[in-house]
């Protein structure tokens, strides 16, 4: 019995070591494109910082990777998460959206922030520094209302 358990453990550990070699996606781009949200609407610097700090990890082509993101299978989960987030809304490619889609997205961003659904609570749990306070929320909402 002990032997089986030991074998099981060894196989498990080898697997854990093995998956560390799975190549990870790297969501990083050196150049910020003209289509980036900040240029499309001339977003003031203080708001750009809030967006970068609280949204861009999952909703842009530049993710800031924490140390634990270099461990599998955490990275695989994270890559999947970023992929989904970018599909829904990609601030780096906002300018390439049709006018209709831009309008939809501005509305959805407003709703999500207003209702406190974004940033995701599960994300904030690990990134408390990404929390947006009420005055930041107000300034984002009034800016979105202006460009809508």
């Amino acid at each position, binding site marked *: 019995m002990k032997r089986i358990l*030991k074998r099981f453990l*060894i196989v498990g*550990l080898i697997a*854990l*070591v093995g998956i*560390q*070699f799975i190549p*990870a996606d*790297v969501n*990083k*781009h*050196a*150049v*910020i494109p*003209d289509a980036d949200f900040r*240029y*499309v609407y*001339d977003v003031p610097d203080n708001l750009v910082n809030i967006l970068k700090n609280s949204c861009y990890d999952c909703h842009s082509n530049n993710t800031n*990777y924490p*140390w634990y*993101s*270099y*461990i*599998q299978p955490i*990275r695989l989960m994270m890559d999947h998460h970023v992929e989904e987030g970018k599909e829904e809304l990609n601030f780096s490619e906002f*300018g390439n959206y*049709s*006018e*209709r*889609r*831009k*309008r*939809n997205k501005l*509305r*959805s961003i407003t*709703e999500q922030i207003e209702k406190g659904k974004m940033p995701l609570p599960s994300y904030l749990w690990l990134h408390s520094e990404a929390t947006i306070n009420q005055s930041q929320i107000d300034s984002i909402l009034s800016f979105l209302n202006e460009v809508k």
Partner: protein
Amino acid sequence: MKKINLKLMIALIGGSLILASCGNNSNTENGSHHHEEGMEHDHSNHEHGSIDEKRNVSTNTGEMKGDLSVVLRNYFAMNENLVQDEASGAADASEKLMVSLKEFKASGLSEEEQKEVNEILESAIENAEHISKNAGEISHQREHLVSLSTDVKDLISIVGTSQKLYEDFCPMANNNEGAIWISSKEEISNPYMGSSMPKCGKVNRVIE
């Protein structure tokens, strides 16, 4: 023997973690150069005429450029569910709506119309997808109904319809900003307010 095994394992795990993290680190550092904040970006997006202006002139040209009957049937079924606060029924109907939108083909459109139809379909499919995936949150479904109804309305104005339709308006929907929806019946049944206020709203326009 046991001890050696354990040590070996620890060494292996530790080593692989370091290896993995080093490898990835160098990757990210390569990519993290900062952008020189360019000043010459394009402002052309500001210059486009507001789409709101276009919204009010969507009249039916009379000429049919595609068959929207399946799309509309699914859209109406979805709305009927929302009127009755049936979120999961609305999700199912929206799934069908998504399929019919993907299958929809228009013909005889100008290049400009085709471009707009493509954009409408892209937006409508995305909205329908959200409604189909949010059976647990009817308020989120209704949020997407606001844009989806505009998509459907704009699609009708380009493609045309053989049925008599009504464009209804509720001033209380969409957080009191107001929103439209399309209906096949003259009487009001409001998909935004549901059973709390099913009769809220008025007919904005008859589409024939």
